[in-house]
């Protein structure tokens, strides 16, 4: 029987107000790919930050190959062969790849010898299929390449235990597939790999073993052949998660939004939307599927007034609102939950209270002639936070301190509170765990029940199939297919997303 390379026993880690890790035991064996599964806030990252020496545990022991170790800093952990690739890369952008890798040297010489490093890095890269140029500056690299630099950095310093925090969150599916290949190769070489995730499909695809955390405790450890979706979800969420919502059948309502032959340019000055037409009715969720970058952002922005159309018309309840200002669109009942929650949707430094007020401060109930009515504002904010179950420590907390799921709740709370006629949501569940996703979905279904028209732009086909009444596929700025969800077929949608099955799909590429 193989001996574990890492044994953690009774790990405790407390943050102000939260017990993030509560008596966690975990074994990691050499040569295995070990998934650490759990919802956001279940303590996965905390546990791994403790293992990699970034956080000091409040209790428990860590043994490396049977020997108890105390890590005072990540340097100690790296010296024991434990390396972590954080979700936000810890790279110095102006430095070259080689310099970044040299930084973490343990027994590095006083002098930097770049030539030898360059050769070593290239060799390591070849071995694991991690193509990187040692002399390139990090700021020039794509996200996927930066991740490779992080991995090579850990390998270069002899990591035998490699921890990856949600490695696929920032990657395209192709890049993710590449990385999985690399990880398998490293595991075959005897490396132990721990990857933190909340995605079940990744566990199925990659993991030899999975440890599930919930609320800072281990709720189960399963081997590859014991994997069972229902069991995993139960361990992770603590209850069953519906795989299909009850979809209320709404009587056909009036058309709310009509986009006709819209043409718009993207930020690069190229066609973002080309002759796109769509109609959404009251009480209907229209799902837009498609690979990101095919006009999703432009579509959302054109409808919310943030981007001008070069041609075509946009009508809201039969009124022409083409190229109206965002404030007009808001006044007409268009709400928007953008892709970039902290950048576009909310102001990170402002408080929960102020963020909730952003869209309604002009309304007479909150502002007098000169001054804001702070009492009414506070009451409403408290009500919204309670109603939408946003977890905040106080209304004055800056929203950048909230977790992803609660940020999204807060944003939805603000947007839904406006009682929108039309709701535009972009990637609503991106980065959210199972529980938070379900909560967001429920809110959207509630909206629909109140006869709001919803435009749901998503890259997650399952999400669209679960929620939408009608599905359209966006490819290269055009709507290349549109069907009621009952007739939608995942395979066909997939083909349309990839650009095949449309006449002229190829020709368009040349036209631009």
């Amino acid at each position, binding site marked *: 029987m193989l001996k574990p390379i890492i044994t953690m026993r009774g790990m405790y880690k407390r943050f102000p107000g939260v017990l993030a890790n509560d008596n966690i035991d975990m074994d990691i064996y050499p040569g295995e790919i070990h998934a650490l599964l759990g919802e956001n806030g279940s303590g996965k990252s905390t546990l791994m930050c403790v293992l990699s020496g970034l956080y000091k545990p409040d209790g428990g022991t860590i043994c490396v190959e049977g020997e108890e170790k105390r890590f005072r800093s990540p340097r100690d952990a790296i010296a024991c062969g434990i390396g972590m690739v954080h979700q936000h890369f810890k790279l110095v952008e102006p*430095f070259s790849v080689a310099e*970044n890798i040299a*930084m973490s040297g343990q027994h590095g010489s006083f002098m930097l010898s770049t030539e030898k490093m360059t050769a070593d890095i290239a060799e390591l890269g070849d071995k694991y299929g991690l193509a990187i140029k040692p002399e390139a500056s990090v700021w020039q690299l794509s996200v996927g390449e930066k991740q490779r630099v992080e991995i090579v950095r850990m390998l270069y310093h002899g990591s035998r235990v490699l921890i990856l925090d949600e490695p696929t969150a920032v990657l395209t599916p192709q890049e993710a597939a590449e990385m999985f290949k690399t990880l398998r190769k490293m595991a075959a070489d005897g490396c132990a790999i721990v990857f933190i995730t909340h995605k079940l499909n990744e566990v199925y695809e990659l993991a030899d073993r999975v440890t599930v955390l919930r609320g800072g405790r281990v709720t189960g450890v399963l081997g590859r052949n014991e994997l069972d979706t229902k069991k995993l979800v139960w361990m992770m969420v603590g209850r069953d998660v519906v795989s299909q919502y009850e979809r209320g059948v709404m009587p056909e309502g009036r058309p709310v939004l009509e986009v006709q032959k819209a043409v718009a340019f993207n930020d690069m000055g190229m066609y973002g939307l080309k002759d796109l037409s769509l109609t959404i009715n009251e009480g209907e969720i229209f799902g837009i599927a498609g690979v990101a970058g095919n006009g999703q952002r432009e579509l959302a922005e054109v409808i919310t007034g943030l981007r001008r159309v070069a041609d075509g018309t946009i009508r809201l309840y039969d009124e022409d609102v083409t190229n109206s200002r965002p404030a007009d669109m808001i006044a007409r009942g268009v709400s928007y939950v953008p892709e970039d929650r902290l950048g576009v949707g909310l102001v990170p430094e402002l408080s929960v209270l102020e963020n909730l007020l952003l869209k309604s401060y002009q309304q007479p109930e909150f502002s007098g002639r000169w001054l804001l009515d702070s009492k009414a504002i506070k009451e409403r904010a408290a009500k919204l936070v309670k109603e939408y179950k946003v977890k905040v420590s106080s209304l004055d907390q800056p929203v950048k301190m909230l977790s992803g799921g609660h940020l999204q709740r807060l944003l939805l709370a603000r947007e839904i509170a406006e009682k929108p006629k039309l709701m535009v949501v972009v990637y609503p569940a991106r980065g959210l765990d199972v529980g938070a996703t379900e909560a967001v979905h429920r809110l959207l279904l509630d909206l629909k029940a109140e006869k709001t028209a919803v435009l749901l732009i998503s890259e997650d086909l399952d999400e669209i199939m679960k929620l939408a009444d009608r599905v359209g596929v966006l490819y290269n700025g055009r709507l290349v297919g549109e069907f009621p969800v009952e007739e939608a077929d995942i395979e066909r949608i997939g083909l349309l997303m990839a650009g095949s099955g449309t006449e002229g799909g190829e020709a368009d590429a040349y036209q631009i």
Partner: protein
Amino acid sequence: MSEQSIIISILAAAVTAGTPILYAALGELLTERAGILNLGVEGIMLVGAVSGFIAAVATGSCWWGLLAAMAAGGAVAFIHGVLTITLRANQTVSGLALTLFGTGLSGYLGKSYIGMPVPQAFKATTLGPLSDIPYIGPILFRHDVLVYASYLLVPAMAFFIYRTRPGLILRAIGENPAAADALGFKVFSLRHLYVIAGGMLCGVGGAYLSLAYAPSWLENMTAGRGWIAVALVVFALWDPWRALIGSYLFGGVDALGFNLQVLGVTVPTFFLSMMPYLFTILVLTLLMAKSGGRVVPPGALGLPYDREDR
């Protein structure tokens, strides 16, 4: 005097006039490379100048004076470090306050020393055969020991910053402290270290004025050289060699003005004393425009580091 010897003497004077600025600029460069903007250079130089002078008078040795200046410079810079690194105060405000503080403190401490002679100043010494090389010898190698030390300091610092591992870490904590922190480097301690080291160099710059350049103490004797040093660091793109060029440029115009007066050219003195400042900034701006005009300061310059910040 022949024309040739005039040019040689101007160039030699350029080196001595540039040296205090060079020391201060190197100190500020080190500080800024670690991500801390210290606008207190002028104040630190003044404190260095006065404490160096007092110590030299008290002990009779300019070497003790130099040590005292370094200690005082480091101590004043440490105040800045505590405020900006530990307490995460605004670096601009803290630096400005430091200059005001340094100016006031030096004036107060040096009050009874005005006009006093220094028992021992740093005197020019020749460096054997080096000093006899035609042109180069008289320009570069007939100075005091602090000038010679600065000749070594510039390449040493460039080597340290670009070629050594600690230098790499220094740049890393100035560019992205979070990255350095995640690798286990003690960002806070290292930043303190470099702020103090930078302050010590600024102190040497001040002491050079009061113990070598014009061995005496005058209130406000730095006359804005600290500010020039701060500007120089930016124009030098945080590179020691460029800082050297900039410093000597300033020294050159300074010396030129002085020589013009000696030669009897009638230009208002105020205009002459303005020239080096104006000229240095002008030339460096032009140089920078030529190099593409892109100034890329250390990424985290001026930003307090907070581990828990997201």
